[in-house]
């Protein structure tokens, strides 16, 4: 399923989830009790694990129809976790009872990322189309998409599923000719809400377990009684499917540099400060519909997982090298001298702190980094561990210095309205 802005709703998600689970086991193994830096540790270990696996078949596979790889999507989700510590705190609380076995650990991590991906995509959707959305609504779109595919599968083979198709259509199907609805259903936009409701109601009778709209959970309670809402959501998925299939290449209109909007942002703030429109404020009311109000909960995990990859021997032996080539500091330091304005702002910090700032803000492997900055072993910036060793300080100290430098950058940009910082 695709919706405006979403990145994590296509079948490639399964591989993203598995890659995150695989790396999390290694990143959390032997991990001690709660400490203040625990999330930072986890994020950095995950970044290292992912970087080490980025050339694997799973990591390089397509994660969605927009060209993002499984590796890129996994890295982005870990970055999101850092920015939303509540989900991480929930995981820690769930693991507080004592050391967890691999299976339990994997399940908890899985639940955490399952909720997080819908949070992230709900925000992506809002930014892309300007309409409110919640993680629960995102899950509901996906549930309806899955339901439609199952209905379509049954319709396509209606002779073999005559009784079930009859239950979905709400009438008895005679053997002679295909029901007309079977031929009318070509896309999700053709799917009628009452079919979805009857499909869910009858699923258990046909051996599928309780249908998603008919479980004891309250999360879809409001949808169950509003076929018009179901119809609107089905239509929206269908419309966007068509649109995104036709317009997936806007290469001719691409902007040279997507960060130019930052200038618009500062200008909008500046113009408001110079000559604010006198009130009243046009600030949107919080819109809360029952579907959005339900708390996000992880969806049931597919069963195939644990047997599939109980442990990957590569991870056990993965040596995260701390050794950089001799002369690295000198060469990397010389290569970074060109960045005038930014260099001035970061001048007081040593090279390791500067590189930690870049790694945090632009990622470990940005096109703009000079080769001398990169660890030849990975092709990316050195890990935080390596940088701490270079700086001859502890990891927590390096993090503190990095965060202080980032705060200083942010304040400078804000004061000078960005442009001449």
């Amino acid at each position: 399923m695709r919706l405006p802005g979403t990145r994590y709703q296509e079948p490639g998600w399964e591989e993203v989830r598995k890659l995150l689970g695989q790396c999390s086991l290694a990143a959390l193994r032997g991990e001690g009790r709660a400490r203040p830096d625990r999330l930072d540790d986890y994020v950095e270990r995950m970044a290292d694990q992912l970087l080490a696996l980025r050339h694997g078949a799973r990591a390089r596979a397509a994660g969605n129809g927009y060209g993002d790889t499984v590796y890129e999507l996994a890295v982005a989700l870990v970055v999101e976790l850092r920015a939303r510590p509540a989900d991480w705190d929930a995981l820690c609380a769930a693991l507080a009872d004592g050391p967890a076995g691999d299976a339990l650990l994997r399940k908890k991590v899985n639940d955490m990322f399952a909720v997080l991906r819908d949070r992230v995509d709900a925000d992506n959707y809002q930014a892309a189309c300007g309409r409110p959305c919640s993680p629960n609504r995102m899950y509901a779109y996906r549930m309806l998409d899955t339901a439609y595919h199952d209905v379509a599968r049954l319709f396509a083979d209606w002779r073999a599923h005559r009784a079930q198709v009859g239950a979905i259509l709400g009438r008895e199907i005679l053997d002679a000719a295909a029901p007309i609805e079977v031929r009318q259903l070509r896309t999700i936009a053709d799917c009628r809400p009452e079919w979805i409701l009857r499909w869910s109601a009858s699923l258990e009778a046909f051996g599928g377990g309780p249908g998603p709209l008919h479980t004891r959970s309250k999360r879809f309670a409001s949808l169950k009684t509003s076929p018009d809402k179901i119809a609107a959501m089905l239509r929206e998925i269908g419309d966007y499917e068509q649109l995104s299939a036709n317009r997936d290449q806007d290469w001719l209109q691409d902007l040279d540099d997507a960060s130019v909007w930052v200038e618009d942002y500062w200008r909008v703030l500046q113009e408001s400060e110079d000559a604010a429109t006198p009130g009243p404020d046009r600030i949107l009311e919080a819109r809360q519909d029952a579907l959005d109000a339900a708390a996000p909960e992880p969806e049931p995990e597919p069963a195939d997982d644990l047997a599939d990859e109980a442990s990957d021997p590569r991870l056990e032996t993965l040596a995260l090298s701390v050794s950089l080539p001799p002369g690295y500091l000198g060469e990397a330091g010389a290569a970074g001298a060109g960045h005038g304005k930014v260099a001035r702002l970061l001048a007081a910090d040593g090279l390791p702190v500067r590189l930690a700032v870049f790694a945090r803000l632009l990622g470990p492997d940005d096109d703009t980094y000079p080769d001398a900055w990169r660890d030849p072993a990975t092709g990316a910036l050195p890990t935080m561990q390596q940088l701490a060793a270079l700086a001859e300080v502890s990891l927590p100290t390096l993090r503190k210095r990095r965060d202080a430098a980032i705060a200083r950058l942010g304040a400078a940009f804000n004061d000078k309205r960005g442009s001449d910082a």
Partner: protein
Amino acid sequence: MHSDDNTSRRLQEALLLDRRQAGDRLLLDDATLAAALDGSRPLTAGERTALQASPLTARRLRHLALARRAADAAWRGSRGVLRAAGNGPLAALVTEDGWWTLHFIHEGGGWRAVLQLAPQAPFAEALLVARAPLRVVDGAGATILAAQLDADGECEAPWPFAAAPGDHLQAHGARFTVEPLEADTP
């Protein structure tokens, strides 16, 4: 290697986009943001505070700002695909952005191709003023039409291929591109 300004701007962007706020939601509607972007109605003090406090609203502003810049940017080309064949000979094709229609007119023993620019296209005025030279190429890169836009936003030429338009395009990638004809292009 990016320029210095660019690196500085990308760091600013990362700082802005990195922020997340628990319970964040869209605080300003598109009309308010668009009016602030085009300068017709600066934000009120309260709206400005809301924009700064809501990373999600800032991301919506980013989306609208980029869309606006993309529309303002010089037109570099449009392309279209041949849809599943209907009944009868092919009469017209529209580019995916909707701004160009390529008509096929059967007359005498042959065909003519007429390219028509939609007057509401964001780049229409600039192209009309410049009487821009354009060309249309098929999916294999062969020129279908190369001419200057007239005052009505049209240009035309005899169909250059032996096969009828529908058959020819079908056999050559089932797509076409309208692009500016650069002075240095033969």
